[in-house]
């Protein structure tokens, strides 16, 4: 048989439980704007009933502590998507800087400055003008000046691209120290979590670990492996171990052939990190794939135009009646020795406009057949099977499509990150309206418990007075 005094004790426990639950709600409200905080809910537990004379009596409720409301699958998924979005984001910003070098020419007069496409056409049309007037100095001068403009714009673009590569390289190497700081922090948290909460969610510690993981996901691509006792191992997406429970392994960087390479232990993981994701993946893709691709296209253009025009000019007859020889070549452009690097070294080496060989071999200086041949190069497939302008047009389309596709990827990935973030926030972040309603519920429950307590008090008073109404109030 239950007693009034056991009901007293039951109610005082209920009051305690309500208080600690109110504490949890208050903590939620206090941390409503804390980054990485996961909403906590009180854990109610029905006390074990007691059995008296074959009848079972409840013994009230206990509040056994706060539980973080967390979906590990969702947070890991969010981290993975974040890695993709960061990679495409940093790659996109690198590509945007690249494409700014090749802003399309609107065609309006005065808008042609720096446009390589117009420069190519100007160079060849200057030969066409020379064709009309092979002996006139102004036509020759205009060939040299168009050639200088093209060479200047191509070599400037190459120099800017190289400078961007260097900048990306520096950005990339700066990421290592951030990664190392985060991984060593995670290793420490692993130890704390394993000792403090080996079987259940570690609450605040887990919040910190998740926060670190989400930061790490912005930097590099990672895999998370949950180990025993709530530990966590982290590898790069290609499988190199960065954190193994309580130990972290440093990501180091070093210069290889003038570029920053990345190592875990002694393994060079540069390529794996480039493919892995995160900001670092984006930087490395920009540095090792995108910019070199653009540069090599420019190199091909510079190489073909320089060598073809040089070789034709050497074969013709200049205004002084000379043809180019090995000892005294009539080169218009700095003759490149290999395709790679041609764009960066493109420059006009000819200083005397009379050295332009408008006349064909063995012809008088008034002949224009060589100028016609040089002007004709613009309709010939001299650059990788395409005409110079066709090649440039193709290059522009390819670059534009690349930027546009990375942009599309990035937009989609960011949308997906937002969606996952929304799902995760819906579950784990503090909703003040929810807290207000919990607070009200708990307040009512506390009031009810107090009321019951005070009624029990009256009842036990009556029992003590045994019908006498005066002695105990």
């Amino acid at each position, binding site marked *: 048989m239950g007693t009034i005094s056991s009901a007293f004790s039951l109610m005082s426990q209920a009051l305690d439980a309500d208080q600690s639950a109110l504490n949890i709600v208050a903590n939620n409200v206090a941390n409503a704007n804390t980054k990485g905080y996961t909403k906590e809910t009180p854990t109610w537990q029905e006390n074990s009933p007691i059995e008296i004379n074959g009848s079972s009596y409840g013994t009230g409720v206990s509040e056994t502590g706060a539980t973080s409301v967390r979906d590990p699958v969702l947070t890991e998924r969010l981290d993975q998507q974040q890695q993709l979005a960061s990679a495409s984001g940093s790659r996109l910003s690198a*590509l*945007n800087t690249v*494409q700014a070098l*090749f*802003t*399309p*020419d*609107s*065609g309006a007069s005065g808008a042609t400055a720096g446009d390589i*496409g*117009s420069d*190519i*056409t*100007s160079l060849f*049309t*200057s030969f*066409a*003008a020379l*064709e*009309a*007037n*092979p*002996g*006139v100095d102004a036509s020759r001068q205009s060939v040299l000046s168009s050639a200088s403009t093209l060479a200047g714009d191509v070599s400037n673009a190459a120099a800017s691209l190289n400078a961007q590569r260097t900048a990306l390289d520096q950005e990339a190497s700066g990421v290592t120290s951030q990664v190392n700081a985060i991984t060593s922090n995670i290793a420490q948290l692993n130890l704390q979590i394993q000792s403090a909460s080996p079987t259940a969610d570690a609450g605040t510690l887990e919040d910190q670990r998740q926060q670190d993981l989400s930061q790490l996901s912005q930097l590099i691509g990672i895999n998370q492996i949950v180990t025993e006792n709530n530990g966590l191992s982290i590898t790069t997406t290609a499988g190199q171990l960065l954190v193994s429970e309580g130990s972290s392994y440093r990501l180091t960087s070093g210069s290889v052939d003038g570029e920053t390479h990345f190592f875990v232990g002694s393994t060079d993981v540069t390529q794996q990190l480039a493919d892995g994701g995160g900001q670092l993946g984006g930087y490395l893709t920009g540095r090792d794939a995108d910019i070199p691709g653009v540069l090599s296209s420019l190199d091909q253009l510079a190489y073909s135009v320089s060598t073809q025009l040089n070789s034709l000019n050497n074969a013709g007859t200049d205004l002084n009646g000379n043809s180019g020889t090995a000892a005294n070549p009539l080169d218009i452009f700095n003759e490149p020795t290999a395709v790679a690097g041609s764009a960066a070294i493109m420059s006009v080496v000819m200083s005397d406009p009379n050295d332009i060989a408008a006349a064909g071999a063995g*012809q*008088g*200086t*008034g*002949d*224009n057949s060589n100028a*016609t041949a040089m*002007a004709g190069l*613009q*309709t010939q497939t001299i650059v990788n099977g395409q005409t110079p*302008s066709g090649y*440039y*047009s*193709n290059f*522009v*389309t390819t*670059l*534009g499509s690349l*930027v*546009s596709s990375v*942009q599309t990827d990035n937009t989609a990935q960011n949308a997906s990150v*937002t969606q996952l*973030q*929304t799902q995760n*926030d*819906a*579950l784990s*972040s*503090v*909703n*003040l*309206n*929810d807290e*207000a*309603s919990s607070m*009200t519920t708990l307040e009512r429950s506390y009031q009810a418990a107090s009321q019951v307590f005070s009624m029990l008090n009256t009842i036990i008073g009556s029992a003590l007075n045994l019908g006498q109404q005066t002695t105990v109030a």
Partner: protein
Amino acid sequence: MRVDPNYITNLVGSLDQTQVSEQQLTSELSSGVRINSLSQDPVSSGENVILLNQIQQDDSFTQSSNLVTGQLQVADSALGMVVSQLNSAISLATSANNGTMNASDVKSIGTQISGILGEVTSLANSSYQGQYIFAGGQTSTMPFVASTATSPESTTYNGDGDINYLETPNGQKVQLNVPGDQIFMGSGTSSVFAALNSLVADYSSGSVSTEQSVSDTQSLSTALNYVSQQRVTVDNSISQLAADSEAVTSNQTQLTAAQTSLMQADVAQVSTQLSLTETQQTALEDVIAQLNSTANSLFSKLQ
């Protein structure tokens, strides 16, 4: 169902997005250009390169064509004058043949024809912008030089037989010059200078047989016809250039129209989009302001 309590953050993200597109649209409006970076329209950017290339080629051809037309007109008018000089030489020679003239008159006619020879030589040495136009490829050397060493005197040609062509953007070739030897040094009786030199030699002596003078006059007529024939080549080139130039200009107009519509912003469309974006932005701002007010929290109702 639980909802994301941080929906304001998402709304602010949308607001940022509308600002980005406003910026984009206003930049299109202010520059009048639809494509400001390659990624906005990669295919059109590529086409634009090709179109601009063709437009510039056409433009350059029109300029070159004006220039060479000037040169061809100089050649044509020089040849026109040569023809009239030769005509007067023929009438002078014919007048000397009518048998009424004495030796001194014939000599005087010889002197006049000698003057015509000098005039024709100087016309054959015509130059345009410092370049001899009847010298083939040797435009920096005076092509026709008279020599007194022989009798009759002779005129030698120092140029060559080189012919220059101008290529039109569609690959056709227009002949730009007729080498001097072809006009003035035609083979046999069609050589202008041979005919004139022998006339001068024959008439300057004061006595010329009728046979000789008839033969001299005939060869001069043949030479004259020959020069006229060569002049036709020059005239043909001039009219061909005019036709080509016109075709190229009309082509250029079409290309420019295509290029403009490719690259130009459609002001009406962009303005409409801008206005829509502005409306969206205002709406978003209002929504955020409404939602952000503290009166919307359940806590504010719990007094």
